[in-house]
């Protein structure tokens, strides 16, 4: 019996030593994503998810061509982030290559993760109608399989976060935007999976979005899409805190 107890004790020790070492060295790893991700029906920082999606789309379409991953003139950068006040937006998943790693230093701010986006406006059609825009924003997204992980932990039931914004006004100031949207203010909508997370603890974190999408041929002729984008974030402590 004593021998059996010894074996149990040594086994537990062997399992726990590396585990405890790992937890000491990777202090910033999250225990659960649910503590950090805002619920889809909540109003993070006073705005609905739909409103944050609209803000993101406004920033995204106005990126300079060399900074927009959807543009043929895009020049890959080590880090690509968008900022609106205190909110940090990661990049849209359209990328010039299918597997992309970004290395970024950020301060302790909330983060918007645009895992899957489809925004459309009156400015990109010759004879637009509300129906055309409604159809446009849902032409691909329903057929996508999406996975988002933070520090290797998957956000469960990610499809809950697929939210369509209300109508908003999209102001386009970038002449050579990759979506061929005319300059000016246009009625627009966006459908997206875009979870918003609270400021992460300081240290290294990995946010990874993975998308596989294929549209059935009765809907439209399309190419299957596969994108894996990894953000390696170094979250620096907030000095004001």
């Amino acid at each position: 019996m004593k021998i059996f107890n010894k074996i149990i004790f040594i086994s537990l020790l062997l399992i726990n030593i590396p585990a405890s070492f790992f937890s000491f060295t990777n202090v910033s790893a999250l225990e659960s994503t649910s503590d950090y991700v805002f619920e889809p029906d909540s109003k993070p920082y006073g705005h609905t998810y739909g409103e944050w999606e609209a803000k993101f789309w406004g920033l995204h379409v106005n990126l300079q061509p060399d900074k927009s991953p959807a543009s043929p003139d895009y020049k890959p950068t080590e880090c690509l982030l968008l900022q609106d006040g205190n909110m940090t937006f990661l990049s849209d998943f359209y990328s010039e290559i299918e597997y992309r790693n970004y290395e970024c230093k950020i301060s302790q701010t909330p983060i918007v993760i645009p895992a899957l986006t489809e925004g459309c406006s009156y400015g990109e059609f010759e004879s637009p109608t509300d129906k055309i825009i409604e159809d446009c924003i849902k032409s691909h997204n329903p057929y996508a399989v999406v996975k988002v992980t933070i520090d290797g932990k998957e956000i469960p039931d990610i499809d809950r976060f697929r939210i369509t914004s209300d109508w908003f006004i999209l102001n386009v100031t970038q002449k050579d935007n990759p979506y061929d949207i005319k300059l000016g203010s246009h009625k627009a909508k966006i459908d997206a999976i875009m979870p918003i997370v609270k400021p992460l603890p300081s240290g290294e974190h990995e946010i990874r979005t993975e998308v596989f999408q294929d549209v059935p041929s009765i809907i439209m002729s399309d190419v299957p899409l596969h994108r894996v984008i990894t953000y390696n974030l170094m979250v620096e402590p907030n000095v004001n805190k």
Partner: protein
Amino acid sequence: MGWSAFAKLSNIVNLLSQKYIFIFITLALLIYFDSSFVNLSEALHLPANKIYLIDVFLIFVTIFIVINVLLIFTIKNIFSKNYRILGTRIKVLQSFIVLYLITVSILIMILIFEILLLERYNIYLIYSLLIITHFTAIYFSIWGTEKFLKWFKSTKNKLLLVYIVSFITFSVLITLSFLYTITELQHFPETIIPGDLKRMIHAVSINLSEIYPFYRISFLITFCSIWVLNAFLLYDYYGRNNRLKFWAILSIPIVFFLIDFFPVTLKLLTSLYLLNPSLFLPLYTIPSTIATFIGAAMVSITSWLVIRKIENKVFKNYLILVTFGLLLILTSTQETLFPRFLFPPFGLITILFVGLAIYLLFIGFYSASLHISRDTALVRNFANRIYQYEFFRSIAKSQLEQDIKNIIPIVLQSKEFNLQKPERLGLDLRKEEIEKLFQIVRRQLEDKLSDNK
């Protein structure tokens, strides 16, 4: 082991050296790569720069021209020895299709020269090609429908009914495919210049034509009608002896096609991605690009298996044209990314086969029916054969009836044979009267044929 491998290789080389098999495989590969090049380029991470894309398109155009030349000579060889039997109308049709293939080849050559020399081309070249090919296809599909309808009226053969439905669906599908493509092309300027492939297919919003769902539904109906046709042919080949093999072969193309077609089934399939992405992607990419293609190829190969058993070489050659037509009709009307990315226009070559597809289907059946209706030895050979020969016999019988129907008024008006004599009404014909009637009808048929020459 080494010898058996060599023997196998030798068999493959022998098989490929057969003219029809060589054309068939080249055609199938050309259409597969042209129609799914953009998909394959994405899946296999191929380069998307302008020079590389133009080079690939140049290879496709070169193969297209070579195939067209081969087809011109093949069709000429098949018919040139048989105008005596088939008549002048076939000669006119054959000259028409040669002229058609030359015109299409010249237009596509102008297009590739403009791309190579000017790095742009005029969209009216594409409009011209689409109009020529689709109007030819619509003309032959309507003619085919009319012919099969006439044959069906006199024989009531159930397989003929399936062919009528197929030809009607071809007419509708080709019309809708043409309208859809033309509507999509209207979003482009007159001069087409190089564009970014990835941006065009992923970032730019699509203002999809309202015709698209109708076009796709008509494709589904056409696919199903050809699938039923295939089931009839396959039943004769496998179904009588091996039901399991019959249903296995029959269900492969329809399962592939339907999974890719509908949202529910496709979503179920793509959900498997999360289980094992690295295993899922290679297993998914190839089947998803051949979903339509495999259906068309299997229909065509099945009909080939049936036709190859026919002993009469001339008759068999006509029906081989039908197998080419079956391969081309479904593949040339499938949806491709052609209307979304036009520099270079991948998928255009596939669409250009639509006219030839219907011509081959029509001319294959029409010349076969004319031949057997005028070759009594061949008709006798068909007696006591299995079901599919019954189908051709009924066509032959019907065609002969139609020919005789036109002659009867002439015979009745002639002074040589008078059925109107009051004393002969209501009585059976005497032996010498039957012989005389037979000679008159035969002479009239021969006169008709010589008038056609």
